[in-house]
């Protein structure tokens, strides 16, 4: 039995609240509290203070990004991990390398979903797509506006839309069939996340499929470069130049590989993942693509939408 003339210490009150005191002491404290209004008041006062502090923590970070993309990405990576032998060191290294590697994930199963199973092994190139692997230097030298780190490393811009007329013009200049536009991403050579502008001289039709070096792989490089720039590890100008000169070479350099890091046969994303991603797209004010069951593409769109890079043609009904 505790003496009522003495009060419990704050420390003891805290521990008692979590039932972490030795059993006998716990009983004594409970009895004391029953008869001591002052200690009870102190106990609830401390709880209030801690609660308020915790409440302040709950508001951060602002804004809290929705979990859909991260969840989908996690699922892809878990599936990948399941397929690998245990304790593979390569995965660890790989997974750090692709830290934000949405896009790799995005290459999963695209071929299968589009009904064009990847007959191409890594490195092999489809001739119809080959011309667009890299943009033509005369048509698409790359254009960027002057930017500083505050502009590009903040919360991310608003999604931009490219007028259909511009989209058509770019296809025309490349001699690409606009009716097959869904197979291509009208991609920025220099990503807007690094200052690239929506200018015909900075756009080209980049294939989603038919080659291992597809639009998703380039997105992956863009994320990597953006990260490096915002970490202060790479100059913006250098990053722009790397994208504009030869993005495939840059990819090989930055990921220390001769081939894109991943190629999957099927997407393990479930309907639930798809719903979450579509929900986020809606929040971003972006239309879902026609093949909205395509998880990797949804994921790539969400990422692009968050980054404020163009949601390209996908967000505009084709042929409108």
């Amino acid at each position, binding site marked *: 039995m505790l003496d009522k003339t003495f009060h419990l210490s704050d420390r003891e009150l805290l521990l008692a609240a979590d039932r*972490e005191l030795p059993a006998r002491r716990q009983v004594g404290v409970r009895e004391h509290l029953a008869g001591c209004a002052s200690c009870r008041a102190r106990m609830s006062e401390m709880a209030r*203070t801690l609660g308020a*502090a915790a409440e302040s923590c709950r508001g951060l*970070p602002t804004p*809290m990004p929705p979990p859909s993309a991260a969840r989908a990405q996690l699922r892809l990576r878990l599936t990948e991990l399941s397929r690998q032998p245990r304790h593979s060191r390569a995965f660890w290294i790989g997974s750090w390398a692709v830290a934000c590697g949405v896009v790799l994930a995005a290459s999963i199963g695209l071929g299968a979903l589009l009904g064009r199973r990847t007959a191409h092994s890594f490195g092999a190139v489809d001739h119809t797509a080959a011309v667009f692997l890299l943009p033509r230097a005369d048509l698409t030298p790359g254009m960027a506006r002057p930017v500083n780190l505050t502009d590009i490393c903040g919360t991310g811009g608003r999604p931009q839309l490219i007028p259909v007329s511009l989209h058509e013009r770019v296809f025309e200049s490349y001699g690409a069939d606009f009716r097959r536009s869904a197979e291509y991403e009208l991609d920025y050579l220099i990503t807007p996340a690094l200052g690239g502008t929506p200018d015909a001289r900075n756009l080209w039709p980049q294939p989603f499929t038919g080659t291992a070096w597809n639009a998703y792989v380039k997105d992956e490089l863009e994320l990597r470069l953006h990260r490096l720039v*915002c970490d202060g590890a790479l100059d913006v100008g250098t990053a722009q130049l790397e994208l504009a000169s030869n993005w495939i070479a840059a990819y090989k350099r930055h990921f220390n590989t001769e081939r894109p890091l991943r190629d999957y046969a099927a997407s393990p994303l479930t309907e639930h993942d798809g719903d979450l991603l579509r929900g986020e797209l809606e929040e971003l004010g972006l239309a879902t693509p026609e093949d909205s069951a395509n998880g990797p593409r949804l994921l790539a769109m969400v990422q692009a939408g968050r980054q404020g890079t163009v949601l390209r043609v996908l967000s505009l009904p084709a042929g409108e």
Partner: protein
Amino acid sequence: MSPRATDSSIELPPLLALESARATDAAGLEEEVLDLFDTFRDSLLRYVCAFGISVSDGEDLVQEVFLALFRHLRGNGGRSNLRGWLFRVAHNLALKRRAQRRREQDRFHADERAAHLVLDPVHNPEEQLTDREQRERAMAVLNALPERDRHCVHLRGSGLRYREIAQVLGISLGGVAKSLTRSIARLQRAIEG
């Protein structure tokens, strides 16, 4: 999910009934990890961001935590307190990531642009003190606390029991109580004063 302290008593965070869930196959394990992701992603992300890590870096880091969890469970690792486990791994990865970022920034240009980037808005208590809002004052005081004290408050706010906090931070139970007592006193002085 997180416990709210009420006026009358300090509520205990519920212990997770995770011990019973034992997925054996890889697919079941994936679902289990994703369920835990749904439950803890937000609070883990908040926790690692409190280390001054950017949100996008934080998102990567949280992914790593759950990949590590998958490996842990697949290797028949213990399930006795997965909540504590998650926060402990997140804590360690966050420390590592922050140190790594600082090294990178030091190595490359330490000019004012880079300095601007590492400045977490959360870590600027003086400015925030000018705001009258009580909540912001609490926040400012919180940010002015020694890092370990701040982590204690944050982890408690994330629903961890003192015992779990002690494990995450690698300190004793008494250490947690002492830290929180100190923080409460400072917070109260700031709010009332």
